[in-house]
């Protein structure tokens, strides 16, 4: 019997705002517990929420980039449940009138194109974090509310994914899109991008859905595919053994590489959603939505296409350059300074990434402008590739303006033929044996002689002219 998997992903993305969704507290990660809190995000009596419009701007941008219909009127709803990390006893979310619906995400899985529909995108506030500290006496627990009230969007994908690999590709494409939009930093480990997966299986050809399980705690890209594939195989084994899949929430155990059922008691929720009476409906004018659409930045897929079509990059290089927004911005800023896109791409992908050694590009002293200048100096013959490489290493660690450095240190190539001729003559005189060997037919010795001339010129002689002069003299 052969089965297929039906997978739908619910992704929570933390919006890159400075302050929380309903109060002015900072969203910064990594502060001491409960530093970024106030009466509103602690759910103190009498405190009321006030919407952060910046969060709406980011959410709308994400929704439009995923080609959703953004609704002119959406509604805040309370999701009621008790949990120590939920200060008000309810989460402010959106329920039957979400911000946006009917979008899609295009992705490439192992070379072929796939489209996954986005059912809805809604906004909500994050909960705090329970801290269980075994070091302290007893079995006390603490709660850190720094994260409580941080703005999230939940992106609910249609159950159209068929494998762990597709799920991982979906997550990567979504992450890349959100990062290029400056909507979310996409950091799974810090929890700014979180993924829950609804997984079920059915016989190939069946049209009804099987009983699904919900996978939580998938907090790394490596785990997305692994957790889902494990769960698919587990469900197949259950069915093949003649049992039925139980609808439950399961956690991915990254150590043991298995999914485990949560205690069912913890998930028997009736959230009693109802419209939040503390907040008016979220109203967006058609004009505001239109202008948000008009000012959407170019998305990575479109950039990739343009880099190939208009800038002449290989598809491979274009893909690499559109993976990370920081790299892509560096590339585009450099190309803005000098039109040799291929040259700049090569320098970035070969030299820059190696020199960066995983540091953020912003930490390097080299600016896109100085890279552009460096490549221009090569392209107009002012410096040799060798000089450029030496200079590059220095620019990365110490910075500086390439043209000024070349001038200051006299690094410009010698293009004066008479001068080069004199150097060539001196080298030929000093290497009579090699000259004889060349003339005897050992022509590959030319490379050695070029090297000697270059060395004698301190690397500055134009290699092309050196070659010409040598051939003429030896000819």
């Amino acid at each position, binding site marked *: 019997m052969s089965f297929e998997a039906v997978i739908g992903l619910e992704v929570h993305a933390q919006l890159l705002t400075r302050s929380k969704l309903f109060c002015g507290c900072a969203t910064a990660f990594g502060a001491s517990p409960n530093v970024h809190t106030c009466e509103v995000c602690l759910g103190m009596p*009498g405190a009321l929420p006030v919407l952060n419009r910046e969060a709406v701007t980011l959410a709308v941008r994400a929704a439009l980039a995923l080609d959703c219909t953004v609704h002119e009127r959406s509604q805040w709803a309370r999701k009621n449940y008790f949990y120590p990390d939920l200060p008000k006893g309810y989460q402010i979310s959106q329920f039957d009138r979400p911000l946006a619906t009917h979008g899609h995400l295009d992705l490439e899985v192992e070379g072929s194109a796939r489209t996954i529909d986005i059912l809805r995108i809604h906004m909500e506030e994050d909960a705090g974090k329970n801290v269980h500290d075994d070091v302290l006496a007893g079995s006390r627990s603490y709660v850190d509310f720094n994260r409580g009230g941080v703005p999230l969007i939940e992106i609910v994908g249609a159950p159209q994914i068929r494998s762990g690999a597709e799920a991982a590709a979906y997550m990567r494409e979504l992450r890349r899109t959100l990062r290029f939009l400056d909507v979310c930093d996409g950091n799974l480990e810090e929890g700014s991008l979180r993924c829950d997966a609804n997984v079920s299986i059915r016989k190939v050809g069946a049209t009804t859905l099987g009983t699904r399980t919900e996978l939580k705690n998938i907090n790394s890209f490596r785990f997305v595919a692994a957790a889902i594939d494990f769960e698919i195989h587990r469900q197949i084994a259950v069915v093949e053994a003649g049992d039925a899949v139980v609808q439950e929430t399961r956690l991915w155990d990254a150590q043991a590489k298995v999914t485990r059922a949560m205690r069912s008691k913890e998930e028997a929720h009736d959230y009693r959603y109802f419209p939040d009476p503390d907040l008016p409906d979220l109203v967006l004018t058609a004009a505001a939505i239109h202008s948000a659409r008009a000012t959407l930045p170019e998305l990575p897929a479109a950039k990739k296409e343009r880099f190939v079509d208009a800038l002449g990059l290989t598809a491979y290089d274009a893909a690499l350059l559109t993976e990370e927004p920081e790299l892509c911005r560096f590339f585009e800023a450099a190309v803005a300074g000098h039109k040799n896109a291929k040259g700049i791409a090569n320098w970035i992908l070969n030299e820059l990434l190696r020199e960066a050694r995983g540091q953020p590009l912003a930490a390097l002293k080299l600016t896109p402008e100085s890279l552009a200048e460096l490549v221009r100096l090569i392209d107009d013959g002012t410096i040799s590739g060798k000089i450029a490489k030496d200079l590059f290493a220095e620019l990365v660690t110490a910075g500086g303006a390439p043209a000024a450095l070349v001038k200051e240190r006299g690094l410009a190539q010698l293009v004066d033929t008479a001068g080069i001729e004199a150097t060539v003559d001196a080298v030929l005189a000093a290497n009579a044996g090699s000259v004889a060997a060349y003339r005897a037919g050992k022509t590959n010795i030319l490379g050695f002689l070029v090297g000697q001339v270059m060395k004698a010129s301190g690397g500055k002689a134009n290699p092309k002219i050196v070659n010409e002069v040598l051939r003429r003299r030896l000819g």
Partner: protein
Amino acid sequence: MTALCDLSLTALSRALARGEHESSAATEACLARAADTKGLGAYLLIDAEGARRQAAAADLRCRAGQRLGPLDGVPLALKDIFLTAGLKTTCGSRILEDFVAPYDATVVRRLKDAGAVVLGKLSMDEFAMGSSNEHCAFGPAKNPWDPTRVPGGSSGGSAVAVASGSAFAALGTDTGGSIRQPAALCGVVGLKPTYGRVSRYGVIAFASSLDQVGPITKDVSDCALLLETIAGHDPKDSTSAPVLAASATEGLEAGVKGLKLGVPKEYFVAGIDPEVRTAVERAIATYAGLGADIVEVSLPHTEYAIATYYLIATAEASSNLARYDGVRFGLRRDPGRGVRDMYLQTRARGFGPEVKRRIVLGTYVLSAGYYEAYYDRAQKVRTLIRRDFAAAFAKADLLVTPTSPTPAFRLGARLADPLQMYLADIFTVGCNLAGIPGLSLPCGFANDGMPIGLQLLGPAWSEATLTRAGRAYEREHDWSRRRPPLARP
């Protein structure tokens, strides 16, 4: 001679401005009256030291010719639902018995900025749930006209303090009548402003779409003055409206000539006490005599108002009260058997029976399978009730009704029968459901000496018309100037 604390707020304010009295003396008079009338249970907390300090500061300002405005130096008190930084704010509940407010409610801040002296915190039904003040976890407040009777609720302590002279005015909150009904039962003036007119920030929520803050005062002029100070847009409350409504103090004396007053026929049917009916009809006759046009109007969905109100209010309350879980503040009962048990014990011990009843009711109303039949349906009826009022206001500028169907009832008389208690709000809940303003003012006394209240209802943002009409009536009678026997020196 009248005791200092029996002056109206307006009279005291003028005397302070002219240097005839000092805030400190007025404050001492209120504190002394509060001590004399301690048995009425108006106050849950008296901040004598803080009040004296504020009064002294006000006197200094006044002497230096730097009086901040009409409320500077006026001793007021607050229903214990308003967060008041540094003071215990209990909301009449065990669950907040030791809760010291970490910040000031916006209205408290506005009063302090205006120089008002905060005397203390006033008794109330727990979480504002009740119509008799008997659901206060710290004992009932009593009606100053007859201490064997209830003062009304939930802002019972506020009405008692103002009626008995232990505060020149008080702030209350009104979710279904909680300002107007106790004002009526204690013979004072109470205003529930338009929803959104006064900030709810820092006011402990009962039912967010219905709650509104308002003044309880000795007369209508005081009411207009206090409203001016507390009203206005607050960026911290998203439901507070950025509307510049007409001033309630200007044109207060302009009278009612030509004003169309609607009498809703559904408010004069079964269940209304004959003495209340007679008093209200006399008030209507007074208005006619003052040149108002009296027209009959209809509010056809009135009979559904109580049911609608109790579905919506309890639904919202069940969610608003979820934050009292023992985790971050307030009472915590933790037997050490895990968080679930901590929730159960904390809430079982912290909440009184009426609050529990409403949480259970509200939770049920929102539950899967019942939401459409109850909550959703109630919202639809709420819309119909709103339309009723809109239609009535197409025919009349204001509506005239009784505030409460009966004068104050005896303590304990309705405790065993919640439904009977809920009916005390029958004429007041419509106003909250529609979000419109309502004013209650004294319109006479029953044969047994208990005050009777008249209710004026107006369209949204019509507070100025309400107080003008209230003032016109008040000038014709001395009901507002009568003081209960206990308050006489």
